[in-house]
């Protein structure tokens, strides 16, 4: 009789044990991404890179492409080739990262503006119509006034694609008859930024 009872206890304990226990292997002595640590003073297991470190593939010598400027002046051409696929990528990225404030049309009426954020300018503002594309790249990279930098979230070349899409938005909404042609000749003159039809 006793033997049988204790057998039941063992079975019961076994069933409960098997179902309930998280064992040690679930949490091993290593850090998951972003896990906290008390080893470093700032509590992060993720270490910032040491200043002046250049990771593979991050030696950014092409000044125009990585700063949007040449000799301290915003460039007025696209340092990467812009194809239709790039423009679509630009649209997608714009809708993710910019439209909450600038609105899908770039008119400055994004959702967050309705909740009290400072109204950003409309992209069809004459000053922005005339601004070189490097300016848009610069705004995304370094921020502008009340707007923070998006460099940590939008990859370098994607910033050019967004700039191209902003140009497309501007032209589609407010194209003075000869502006598209002007833009093309400008690209032709500088001889850069890929084919003149880069805005397609």
């Amino acid at each position, binding site marked *: 009789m006793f033997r049988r009872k204790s057998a039941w206890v063992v079975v019961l304990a076994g069933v*409960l044990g098997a179902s309930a226990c998280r064992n040690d292997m679930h949490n091993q002595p290593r850090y998951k991404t972003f896990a906290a640590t008390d080893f470093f003073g700032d509590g992060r297991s993720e270490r910032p890179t040491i200043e002046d470190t250049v990771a593979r593939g991050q030696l950014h010598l092409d000044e125009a492409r990585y700063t949007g400027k040449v000799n301290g002046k915003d460039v007025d051409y696209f340092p990467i080739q812009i194809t239709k696929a790039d423009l679509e990528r630009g649209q997608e990225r714009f809708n993710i990262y910019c439209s*909450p404030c600038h609105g899908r049309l770039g008119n400055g009426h994004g959702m967050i503006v309705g909740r009290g954020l400072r109204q950003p300018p409309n992209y069809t503002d004459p000053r922005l119509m005339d601004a070189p594309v490097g300016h848009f790249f610069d705004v995304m990279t370094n921020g502008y006034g009340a707007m923070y930098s998006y460099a940590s979230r939008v990859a370098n070349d994607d910033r050019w694609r967004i700039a191209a899409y902003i140009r497309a938005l501007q032209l589609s909404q407010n194209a003075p008859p000869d502006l598209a042609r002007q833009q093309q000749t400008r690209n032709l003159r500088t001889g850069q930024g890929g084919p003149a039809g880069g805005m397609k």
Partner: protein
Amino acid sequence: MAQLFRPSSNTIAKVSIAFVVLLAASTLAVAYIMDRGPWITDVRVAPEQPVYFSHKHHVKDDGIDCRYCHTGVETSHFAGLPPTETCMTCHSQIWSNASVTQPIRDSWTSGKSIAWTRVHDLPDFVYFNHSIHINKGIGCSTCHGQVQDMPWVYKVNTLYMNWCVNCHRNPAQFIRPKSEVFNMDYKYPSDQAQLGAQLVKEYHVQSLTDCTTCHR
């Protein structure tokens, strides 16, 4: 000598057989329910967070895309949690005096990260990767449920191995067009079996059930 067993013993014997069977069954049932229920799995239990951050407000009401904050999700194993700077892009200006957003400003001025409590936490012997799922047409809501309706995030799936493997055996059940991956309101069409099979072919989706896929 009196009879050892009275007639009623018959009934007792029958009832106790039934009782033993019931006991065994209910023990198993209790164990199973506990194993699959919130007490062990934390499904539908939202942990306390250091800031009252609401996906309902930010995603549903304000229309912010997942990738605005979870930037790694398309390209890396880790979806990424937003640094304080991301919150500041808006909260430097809006709700910038409220006490609910005070921890954001504290973190910004002190440089100390906001320590979010993990909601999903696979055991360390399991390898998981977001980007492959996103790029093969598995949507956020398939695994995470209706996050846009959650004031506090909770799990909707156990993340048990049978859950992963159920999909890996036959991804056609859950696959959707890549353009719909971030659509939180996506509804599977009635001809999912057909569409699924077609997408599996189009995206070259494999059925990965080798142990080493996830245990490496």
